[in-house]
């Protein structure tokens, strides 16, 4: 602006500028209100109903919530256990992978990232079904493990917790690897040089500088893996048996097969609450300020 502005005009401009952040937030907030907040409140409402399909009425049926522990404790335990083990496996596999691509990838970096994402060009169901072939009773993996004596002669992998965990870990690996890759990629290399300049051997430089500074990626990766893995039910359906049923399978069958909406809603809501309660101390301990920084 070349002309000088009068004070009321300046004040109006300043007011308008102060509005900008809110205006930018508006679409996102509206979306969350319509498609997150409203359904959640409705879910809570449904979870306190009782009756038989299609005649439900709101009766403060708190008993629906108790079902998670009294009736489906085993499935809840499966969910948490499988998701936890798969998350650990993902972390162990993804960190070195991301480290290698970020630090040693050189001009192959983008190519390696595409390779990492390549399986995702294939539909989810096909990807998971292919594990059925890999882990089949007469397949290569089972055969090899039997021949070297790691599996007994009558043992199988399919329809066990092993195959379910393998499927979950496989499907969520990129969600772990990508955030870790990003945090390693943006790490200032001169910090590592500074550490070695200050008498840190490579392992110490990793422990004191690289690892702590990549924690935001590790936290983001574990959240992106663990949260959806707890609620997953497809891997069990395709690779497991009813023995491995997770809480997701229960919710799915309550909603779609038994049409017991109140219990399904109560289970969904409790699962969400349990995950949030579990993750608060985790995120606290690993430093949220770095996550948002």
């Amino acid at each position, binding site marked *: 602006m070349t002309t000088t502005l009068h004070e009321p005009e300046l004040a109006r401009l300043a007011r308008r500028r102060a509005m900008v952040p809110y205006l930018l937030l508006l679409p996102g907030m509206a979306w969350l209100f319509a498609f997150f907040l409203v359904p959640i409140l409705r879910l809570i409402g449904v979870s306190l109903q009782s009756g038989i399909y299609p005649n439900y009425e709101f009766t403060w049926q708190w008993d629906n919530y108790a079902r998670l522990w009294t009736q489906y404790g085993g499935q809840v335990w499966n969910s948490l256990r499988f998701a936890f083990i798969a998350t650990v496996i993902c972390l162990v596999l993804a960190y070195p992978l991301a480290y290698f691509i970020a630090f040693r990838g050189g001009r192959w970096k983008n190519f390696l990232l595409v390779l990492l994402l390549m399986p995702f060009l294939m539909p989810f169901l096909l990807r998971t079904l292919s594990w059925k072939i890999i882990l089949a009773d007469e397949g290569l993996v089972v055969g090899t493990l039997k021949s070297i004596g790691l599996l007994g002669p009558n043992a199988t992998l399919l329809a066990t917790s092993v195959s379910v965990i393998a499927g979950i870990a496989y499907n969520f690996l990129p969600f772990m690897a990508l955030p870790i890759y990003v945090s390693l990629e943006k790490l*200032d290399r*001169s*910090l590592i*040089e*500074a*550490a*070695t*300049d*200050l*008498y*840190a*051997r490579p392992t*110490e430089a990793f422990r*004191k*500088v690289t690892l*702590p*500074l990549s924690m935001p990626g590790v936290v983001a990766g574990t959240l992106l893996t663990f949260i959806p893995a707890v609620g997953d039910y497809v891997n069990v359906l395709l690779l497991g048996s009813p023995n491995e049923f997770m809480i997701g399978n229960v919710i799915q069958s309550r909603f779609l097969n038994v049409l017991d909406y109140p219990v399904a809603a109560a289970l969904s809501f409790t699962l969400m609450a349990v995950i949030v309660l579990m993750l608060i101390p985790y995120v606290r301990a690993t430093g949220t300020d*770095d996550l948002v920084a």
Partner: protein
Amino acid sequence: MTENGIPAVELDHVTKQFGEFTAVDDLSLSIGENTFFAMLGPSGCGKTTTLRMIGGFEDPTSGTIRLHGDDVTGLKPYRRAVNTVFQSYALFPHMTVAENVAFGLRRQKVDDAEIKRRVGETLELVQLSARGSAKPKQLSGGQQQRVALARALINHPRVLLLDEPLGALDLKLRKEMQIELKRIQQEVGITFIHVTHDQEEAMTMADSIAVMNHGRIERLGSPSEIYEDPRTPFVAGFLGASNLMHGTVSGNDVGLPNGAVIRLTDHQAARCNGHREVQIGVRPEKLSFYGRGTSENTPANRLTGVIADASFLGTSTQYLVEVPGIGQVAVVEQNLGEIHAPGEEVVVAWKPEHTFVVE
């Protein structure tokens, strides 16, 4: 040099190639104990690569590097008694100032009481005692710079490497830090090797300067030696301003294209060693104006021309004088008396000892 004459740092025919590109080309250099040594040059001249080889971050393609007489070629950075102040400071963002400063001592397993004492001492040296518990992000650029310095100095390195440490600071702070760095160097009494592209910074601080170009040292010496006798056109142009002129030598005289004869000292004439065609130079502040009528007081080297441009710079005025057959000659005069106007015909003159020959 120490009494026993072993230099703090010695580079012996060091070459570094990155693929086809030769960053440092057969460089030999020896830096004495307790000197403030500056490596000066434009970007890409090999000064930073040389520094990184001394620090151990790059291995030379060929040649030997010695620290206090010990061959350290190929030794990792954490095995060298050398510390670095990085260009962007490279402070650990997840640690406090005190933790940053203590990092080197912790790696060397120094006991806690000793670390505490030395951190306090070093923060005091850089005047940051009050900010020990702050995170680097909370400090100003100048303060971060001093943390980087403290983090290196606390280890009592025998050589401190500084990679453009003042590059990110504004002018006023840079001037303050130049004086501060010099004070600290004298206080701790170790060799500082300072890489910079700022000629004024190098001249202010360094005892000795190596001017680098294309991976080689073009000129090595004290700031005044290099300034008064740059020896190459590159150094003459990179360090301050120069008037360079082509001419033909005979004895101590150089004939210029416009017929003027410029006198050289015996020392400078000897440097022509048999060449007929040479380039001579003189610094603008060595030139003065004289009226048309020259007297015995007028210095021997004279050119006649017309003032083309005058720029007032406060303490001095810079003139451009158009000399027929030679081109424009820059003259800087202190503002003591009259200021000359463009169009005025003048004689500019200087003493033979202010004339230098460049190769």
